[in-house]
């Protein structure tokens, strides 16, 4: 393409501006900067949604809903918390809503779930699963944890938030976060114990 060769294609230089500046610009009517916020957080939000739902199909739909809600609420953002905590709160609430919508299909009794998982883990254990398979097992089990345990463990272990941030995102006390996290890990450990014994 002669024409194309004659034109110098140029990459835009990287520009880092903090969230505070971008939000201020947005609130001043500069909606163009919203894209930068999306690009900055899209991976984290998608990871969060993916970890919670364990379903590749609607990760993007839910993550996009999160950003649309953020867009609608950003004009009123008061800087009382960091933007990402605020965004995570929206994401968690969106995921909760979605989980409730899918409750009938998604949730079965925890007891029966435990039994089926035990069976699953034992089957897996018959042939030592690889690390990748273990991740699969873990993710499957995680997706079946009750919502109140699943969300804090994802926020902590996948997203790396502090207890204080998790409490802020989930709108609960720090003590609740501690106990739920501990309980979530305990449940996962119980279910995965046969495999863990082989690994450690």
């Amino acid at each position, binding site marked *: *393409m002669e024409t194309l060769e004659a034109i110098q294609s140029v990459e835009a230089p990287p520009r880092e501006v903090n969230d505070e500046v971008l939000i201020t610009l947005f609130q001043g009517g500069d909606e163009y900067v919203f894209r930068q916020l999306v690009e900055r957080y899209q991976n984290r939000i*998608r990871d969060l949604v993916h970890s919670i739902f364990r379903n590749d199909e609607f990760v993007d739909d839910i993550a996009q809903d999160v950003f649309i809600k953020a867009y609608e609420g950003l004009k009123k953002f008061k800087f009382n918390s960091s933007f990402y905590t605020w965004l995570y709160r929206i994401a968690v609430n969106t995921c909760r809503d979605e989980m409730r919508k899918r409750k009938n299909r998604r949730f079965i009794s925890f007891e029966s779930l435990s039994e089926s998982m035990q069976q699953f883990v034992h089957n897996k254990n018959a042939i030592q699963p690889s690390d990748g398979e273990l991740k699969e097992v873990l993710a499957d089990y995680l997706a079946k944890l009750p919502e109140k345990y699943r969300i804090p463990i994802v926020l902590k272990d996948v997203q790396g938030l502090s207890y204080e941030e998790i409490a802020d995102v989930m709108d609960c006390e720090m003590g609740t976060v501690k106990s739920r996290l501990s309980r979530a890990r305990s449940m996962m450990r119980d279910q995965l114990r046969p495999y863990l014994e082989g690994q450690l």
Partner: protein
Amino acid sequence: MKNLNARQRHVLLSMYIDNELSASEQIEVELLLEKSSEARVELQELQFIKQTMAGQKAPPADDNFYAQIHAKLPQPVQVEQPLIQRKFVPAVAGLSAIAFALFVLFVSLQSDFFVKFFSKTTQNVQQAYEENVVNKWIMPLFEKTNKDEALQFAMFGVLPLDDSSNTVLKVDTAFASGYSFELGQGNRARNKQVTVNDLYREIKPTEEQRQALDTILFLASRQIEEGVLLDENRNLAISPSIITMQKSLIARVAACLDIDRRDRMEDFLEARNALYAVRSTKAPAVSRVKLVKQISEPEENNTFVMISRDTIILSEISIDRNRIRKHTNQLASNEPRYRIAYEHFTQQVAKEVKDIKEHTRIVRDNLSNVIVKPAPVFVSHGKSGLRIQVKYSQGSTRSNSFVTAYVQPRRPSNKHVQWVSSNNRRPTQPLQRQVTIELHSDTMIDVRENALHEMERELQRLESHEFHLELREGLLYLKLDSLEQMIRISTDSIKMKLRNFQLNDREVLKKKMPPGVEIRPDYYEYEHRKEEPSPSYLMQQYKMRLNEYNNQGIQLKRYKGIHTKNKTTSSKAEKKQGD
């Protein structure tokens, strides 16, 4: 050590691996781990789960992730308006005579200059410019401004217009009642030597100050990008905010520094003979948030000085900046970006100003489509090129007290403005003319909000015209010969319009078509689906089209006609035969 039950121990271990324990609790856990092998095993298991969990990642995002969000964002459904809103001013007809007189005078004075000034061009780039930039309606002239260029602009008031020549836009605010800018030759060698790193090396800002400076310079570079625009008719629009930005940028940089570093900055500016000096002040450093908020406040006067390629008449027109941002953002996300040398734009000017007769009509048309504000404008030769001086009118951008508190001109009687004084060094040459255009509050102004009127009129005449229709990039393209330019409106609007004319049905549409006219399959598909095409579908269509062009060895086209005149002629002939 307290006696812990299994649950308490588990909670503590869980917090231990999360590093969320107090110092005393941590010691307690470490003692427990020393004593209890059971606790050590439990800790290992918890750590293993935590590490495995950390690797949970979603599959990579689709390239169109943001485009999909953008498509869902709440926005009013409306006809795509021209990015430069043109407003019809009946009373301005009388002004055309004055303006044309200015134009003729100007062309006669400037033609040699323009021919020399815009001499270099290559056909390929020109063509690419025509096809890829002009038809996109509007483009920022400085689309890749970086922080170094913003700093150079602040120090020397010069913006390079292209890489290959020394063409520059110079601005000057050194006279009290207005500002001026000049398109001409400049010396870029000096500017190139100054970088943001040089500044940092000399003033040694703290980390916080450095962040503030980065933010200010980033915003300045964006302001430059948005401040000088080209539209689809190759008109150049310059925001008055660019003019005052030079001074205010230096002021902001100075404002966020402490007193010692402000002194160092003054040394830096002096050593490089910058246009402005830092005023000695004991004012404390201003916070970044305050500075940023000040920059981001919307301009009260959202006007641009517009230089038309056809007329070189200066006017002020309203431009919707949000639409420009959205539009350029869309372009950036959808298509490769090209650096277009300014000379190709200006070469076009040189070519077109030659035919004065033809432009008589265009002058009149253009004048009827701009709103002229009572801003006295002066045109003359500058030191190196075309010089334009605009006097401040009420509401114009003006330096505020914040700016004057921090900077002062290094040379109060700037030589650049000598050309407007009575002591002009070239008094014998009639190079200076003054035109004052004024409209009063009772002037009738008929605002043309959008392209709907155009569309209605053209659709009514549809049957007598060739009909070109193409769906691309989320927009339906309609071309009618008489328009001589592509009209682009949103799919919703065109659908609505077509429905009004009973054209939304495929069969009806066929009947309405002149004989021999084909309609792109894209359009059928779109209508058949009866729903908004998804962004990924549109992108797919767009990429397919590009590949198609590449495979056929066709240069990148913005618009490809559906049929040729030959076809139409033969169809007409067939029709005659049939009759």
